[in-house]
């Protein structure tokens, strides 16, 4: 299991990266492994508002669906449309497959560093 040090993580298993005033969000390696094969992702639209602790989309496996919980509040500035056609990228390269970018970030939940997140996952798994 991979926990890149340059990222921060939410307890609902999203990874977060700051990039030029924007926040990039994806799901962690632990999350994709728990979900199993991701078959589809429901994404928000550009311009949608997102709120800390609320769902901004969901990911489907064959027999389950899981909400994607937003670790920040702000406005969606970009979505990764590639994932609509190739959701398997979330399994293959969870840290390469960003899901959304959020601008105008007004609030961020308390995030974990990679070591703390790894320990958190170990306890959960």
């Amino acid at each position, binding site marked *: 299991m991979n926990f890149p040090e340059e990222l921060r993580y939410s307890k609902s298993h999203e990874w977060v990266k700051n990039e030029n005033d924007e926040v990039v969000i994806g799901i962690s390696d632990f999350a994709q492994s728990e979900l199993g094969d991701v*078959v*589809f992702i429901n994404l928000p639209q550009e311009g949608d508002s997102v709120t800390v602790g609320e769902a901004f989309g969901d990911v*489907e*496996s*064959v*027999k*389950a*669906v899981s909400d994607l919980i937003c670790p920040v509040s702000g406005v969606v500035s970009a979505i990764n449309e590639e994932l609509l056609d190739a959701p398997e990228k979330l399994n293959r390269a969870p840290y390469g497959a960003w899901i959304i970018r959020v601008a105008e970030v007004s609030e961020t939940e308390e995030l974990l560093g990679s070591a703390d997140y790894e320990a958190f996952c170990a306890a959960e798994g």
Partner: protein
Amino acid sequence: MGSYVPSTAPEQQEMLRALGMENVRELYRDVPESMYLNGPLNIPAGKSELEVRRAVTAMAAKNKVYHTILRGAGAYDHYIPSIVKYIPAKEEFLTAYTPYQSEISQGLLQSIFEYQTMICELTGMDVSNASVYDGATAAAEAAALCRDRKRRVTLVSAATHPDVIAAIRTYCYGTGDEMRLVPVKDGVTNFDMLKEMLTAEVASFYVQQPNFYGLLEDADTLGAAVHQAGALYIMGCHPIALAIMKTPRDCGADVAVGEGQPLGLPLGYGGPYLGFMAAAEKLMRRLPGRIVSETMDNEGRRAFVLSLQAREQHIRREKAGSNSCSNEALCALTASVYMAAMGPEGMAEAARQSMAKAHYLAKGLCALPGVSLRYGGDFFHEFLVDMPRTEEVLSALEKKNILGGLPFEGGVLWCATEKVSREALDEAIATVKEVLTR
């Protein structure tokens, strides 16, 4: 008394003993005494099969089976080829549950995949579900899937079957959304009013083709206006007419639905029928109900499975777009067999003959004194006429074992299908003539 319990009394005792129980009441130990029924239900005692046959046959005998049916209005008396009745009666098709276990359900899954393909062919759309309850629920579900966060209002042409309008309104009532009726002009959707009503809050517009009066709507023009306003376009179609009529896809529809009953299902006093539902690919994951997909098994063989299940209620629960679970699978199978037996040419022939016979009937009736078409537009196999002495006319037809048209909005809505012979049409026309020239 009739029973389908195979266990004999000694076997039941043996099983109870194995459980350490003396009587059946112990099985229901969690049921409070206050509500446990100690006496029998107030219904008759059970009967043998022969007695039941007599009783139910006697009820059927109280209905009247007409020789000729000239009434449609949402339930159509098309001819049902013999093979169509036999195949869905095969025990495995009849008694299986939904094919969740694909390894022992390939036959069912393949038949649904074939049905989906046929519905796509008929409508020109990209994807069909495995069926919904009937044409009215298909329309209501279609309107629901077209709604998004910003666009919540559903427009419906007033020239739609009244039950379909009521079902759409009911589903809207459920979610607290609004349905608005677009008025009719000369028997078809009022185009100018539609354009005016297509505001930014409108999610979709539903039109029935042919409409409830049997008239052909200018479906392309309506669709273009709907899209221009950024809304989605739903067409409700007669499936046999589709064999010769411009496809919903070619008319610009985003969702095509309809009542599948004409495809080999008996009138059955209203059901079971079949709601067919197909959509453009972009809406695939918003479709309700079951969808079969082709894939491969672990040895690379062609296999079929229920797919896209994460849309459905058993996974998505309160976030599912629909609560749909059971559908009309056996009716969809019936429709498939019908379409296979008729083939493209047979379907088109049924459509052409229905249309020809309706026009023959209309011409014959309108030659009679005081009878005229209410609307001048092109029609398929139904038409509304104004005529005097409706009740007398219908009762004279009744005596000849003919079910005449449906009294509606002060006129009579007639229908003819390929099943009615010229001789029967002539008899009906002559009977009406007799009354009107009396």
